[in-house]
């Protein structure tokens, strides 16, 4: 084994420098053509030209929404205003997602460079990186990078001797998930309560300090310098018809190779999970992959071969989201999974609008009733009806997507919900009479002494006392223990 095996499935654009350059040394970034896109932009391109390149690249927002970045820039550029703003949304908050953190920790200059280019394109001279305070290392490296960029004159007045000046500031978020929603982010940035406001007006018209504001996510920005230097045709050659380029995913859950991957749009989940991700831990049965975090849904075996892009992933009942990918195996209880996400969203709701403030709480309570075996079939109807309403009438994206984990799992795993609703779900372990050899191992490990049986006789679990700890399951040498 003296040759290196190429992982041909991956292609890294946003992560191109991560792990390969010293993020605290601007020269390392310059060595790999860092700030060349900015120099070219300022020396050779008009703002309009820059916007056209981004538009023609068909780059779409990597924060999850998938809105065409070039159009967003154009909308902000065409507003007449004495001041405009560029904001980088680095308030990554989906459970299990860490794409943006890795980019900021590994290649902060690519984001800074892109923000300056965006500033030039839309006519902004001031930018903010809104980053969650829970990312101290990323904050540290960004601060260092900003200082270095200033010392090289890439930030400040008359960048590359042009008339263009741009300055950048970091703003730390106080840990509210909802501040990843752009209007809430802007409110927080202004020192107001971090809660969303109704759109329209969109930030491109009235955003930070009521001025036209362009908000893009970290990964979106990280793509920009490559697009500027390599051109929109190059970018268009990667990906699918409607989704160009690559997407970074954070693989987590019951997968062997937990980590970050970047694949061209159109890669199948099977490739991501089995080829890149190395398959399921302990070779267990794959059950589903959860994408899009608390706003997304689950994708099951039958759709593993779907080439993934913004549209296809929506068609199979989930969403791209920011890139979190949580792999679930046969042991995972789907009702518990949606309860986990609802616990998250009801806690992270800002509390402004009724459906999200009270609705997500009630959804969580219904799920709690179900999993406590205190629910009823009516609860299941109520759950679906309320989920639909919260989705339909909430004020912002958080509330509108909060019920997705429920709706998607009900759609795919209705029987699991019904088992709880009709209270037919087994909650205790049992012994398969045909397999038990009477070795007594199970009864010896049972912490509550609820397994009885003579040596070489079939053993029995007293279900009334079983606490479902699983000790017997692990101890049995012949797979005779039946899981709940």
């Amino acid at each position, binding site marked *: 084994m003296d040759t290196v095996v190429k992982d041909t499935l991956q292609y890294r654009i946003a992560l191109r420098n991560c792990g390969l350059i010293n993020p605290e040394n601007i020269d390392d970034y310059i060595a790999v053509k860092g700030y060349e896109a900015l120099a070219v932009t300022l020396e050779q391109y008009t703002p309009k030209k820059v916007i056209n390149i981004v538009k023609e690249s068909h780059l779409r927002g990597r924060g999850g929404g998938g809105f065409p970045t070039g159009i967003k820039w154009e909308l902000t550029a065409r507003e007449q205003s004495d001041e405009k703003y560029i904001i980088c949304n680095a308030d990554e908050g989906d459970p299990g997602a860490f794409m943006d953190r890795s980019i900021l920790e590994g290649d902060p200059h690519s984001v800074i460079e892109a923000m300056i280019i965006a500033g030039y394109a839309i006519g902004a001279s001031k930018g903010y990186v809104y980053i969650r305070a829970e990312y101290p290392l990323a904050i540290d490296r960004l601060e260092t990078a900003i200082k270095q960029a200033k010392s090289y004159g890439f930030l400040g007045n008359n960048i590359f001797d042009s008339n263009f000046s741009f300055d950048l500031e970091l703003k730390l978020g106080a840990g509210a998930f909802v501040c990843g929603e752009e209007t809430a982010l802007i409110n927080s940035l202004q020192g107001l309560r971090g809660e969303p406001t109704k759109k329209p007006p969109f930030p491109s018209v009235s955003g930070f300090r009521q001025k036209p504001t362009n908000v893009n996510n970290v990964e979106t920005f990280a793509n920009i310098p490559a697009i500027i230097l390599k051109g929109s045709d190059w970018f268009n050659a990667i990906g699918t018809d409607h989704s160009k380029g690559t997407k970074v995913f954070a693989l987590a859950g019951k997968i062997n190779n937990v980590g970050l991957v970047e694949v061209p749009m159109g890669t199948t989940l099977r490739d991501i999970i089995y080829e890149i991700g190395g398959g399921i831990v302990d070779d267990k049965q794959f059950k589903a992959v959860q994408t899009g975090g608390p706003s997304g849904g689950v994708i099951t075996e039958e759709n593993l071969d779907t080439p993934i892009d913004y549209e296809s992933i929506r068609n199979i009942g989930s969403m791209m989201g920011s890139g979190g990918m949580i792999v679930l195996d046969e042991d995972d209880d789907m009702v518990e999974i949606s309860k986990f996400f609802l616990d998250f969203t*009801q806690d992270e709701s800002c509390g402004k609008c009724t459906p999200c*403030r*009270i609705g997500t709480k009630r959804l969580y309570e219904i799920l709690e009733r179900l999993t406590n075996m205190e629910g009823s079939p009516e609860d299941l109807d109520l759950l679906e009806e309320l989920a639909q*309403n919260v989705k339909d*009438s909430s004020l912002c994206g958080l509330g509108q997507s909060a019920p997705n984990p429920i709706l998607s799992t009900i759609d795919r795993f209705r029987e699991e919900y019904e088992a709880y609703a009709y209270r037919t779900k087994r909650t205790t372990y049992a012994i398969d009479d045909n397999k038990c050899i009477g070795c007594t191992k199970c009864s010896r490990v049972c912490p509550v002494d609820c397994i009885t049986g003579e040596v070489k006789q079939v053993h029995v679990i007293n279900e009334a006392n079983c606490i479902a700890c699983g000790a017997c399951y692990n101890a049995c040498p012949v797979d005779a223990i039946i899981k709940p």
Partner: protein
Amino acid sequence: MNTLNIHVNGRPMMVKKGITVLEACHQAGIKIPTLCHLNLEEYGIVNKVASCRICVVEIENRATLVPSCAEKVYEGMHIKSDSLRAINARRNNLELLLSNHPFECLTCTKNLTCELQSLAEELNIRDISFTGKKMDYPIDHSSEAIVKDPNKCVMCRRCETMCNDVQTVGVLSGLRRGFDAVVAPAFNLDMLETSCTYCGQCVAVCPTGALTERNDVPRVWKRLSNKNYHMVVQVAPAVRVALGEMFGMAPGSISTGKIVTALRRLGFDAVFDTNFGADLTIMEEARELVHRIEEGGTLPMLTSCCPAWVKFIEHQFPDMLDVPSTCKSPQTMVGAIAKTYYAEKVNLPSKQIKVVSIMPCVAKKAESARPELSKENLHHVDYTLSTREFGHMIKEAGIEFEALPDGDFDNILGESTGAAAIFGTTGGVIEAATRTAYELLTGDPLEHIDFEELRGLEGVREATVTIGDLDLKIGIAHGLGNARKLLEDIKAGKADYHAIEIMACPGGCIGGGGQPYHHGDMSIIKARQKAIYDIDKNTPRRKSHENEMVLKLYQDYLGDPYGEKAHDLLHTCYTKGERI
């Protein structure tokens, strides 16, 4: 193009550009239920946080439902207000609110005036599908004026709009998140610990019983039933043009005579008029103004009748406490005179006299409790009831208010002029003061009594009144946000007014925090204002210094206006506060 073609429930119609879907539907004869929405546009007060999601409608090609209160119409818009999807969503959202609301309607202060309650009826809610945890916050009884029950808060944020945007007091704002989100002072401080002015505008707009005035009715009943006390009552100018609304009378009905009769039937021993106090205030305040102009005192002089305004300046502009007039407010002047001069007249010790005030105001409750507004450890005013509380007492006593014969106030604190009547509206105090100051300064009789230039509902107004060789420059602000603008101008040396009138509530006392609920209907406030000016017009004497009983009071007891005894009884001082 100022008109747009839209469709409402399939029917085409033309509407004005710039209106909301809610307004368009209203024009189409469709009533869409609302909760958080509040529109008092003429005061610049619009609450469109679009948070309650009760007014949602379907818009063609929109993935989600849209709040009609905050969505503007556009050319070619197709609105569906009556689809099952929209109706179900409204019901669903209301049920959610109700599932987190204490079912105390029968004993709630807002029973039958609660907008959430009316909405439940309107949407035909007979059953609530959801059960679960309810909010469980302690009720804040800390202040003398306002009771805050967070468990009844529906997060409509109207109070926040009033407190922050309109009044710029900044006490109330969203606290915590998710299910625990509630409107409260920062750090969930008690109201008493904040710089709340108790203006009561939060109470005036709260759709539920989350913010209400402190209920002082039981205490007043208790005192009334104790025959050892001589019960004196006074009624503020703005009460008489609003109380009738609680008994089905049209807004702007004047019910002064019925009020007097009702108070006698409730068992009060003497029924006085705060308007007497208003005339007395003018005697002092006009003198003070003339004194400040002639002796080079601090100018401008700001009025001091409004307790919320006084508290506002104490907390927000503590270095400007030399600008308000030192005059006590009319209610405390009446209280002070009742417990001294009147007590002597009826030969009773002061402590045996209890003074009750009927006020359009919530802040007056806190004012009555201020320690400096007392003499020999007896507060000038013992109990202050809002117009609403008074209405409830009348109902409780089974008095058919509409059928009551008119009665007359008792002497001598019952006599008043038209100048006093207009104290109830923005611009009124300064107009009353100008009428008297004019004659004081010139010695000539004032021919044109109506100073139209001082009237209206504009937030900040100014006028120059020529008095002899003096051009008296007058400023008027109502609403504390407008007051702040004027104060900042004064601070920056940009304003050269002689006198400024400030009232904390939009519209003045007619729009006070203690008045019958207007539920966002601006026409009610306008009708009350018109009634106030009608009273003035129909009163034989219209200048405070022509109030014979006030003059008699000076002659018999006080001596000179702005003199030593008057200072002792009728003037006060201010205390620096903090901004919290």
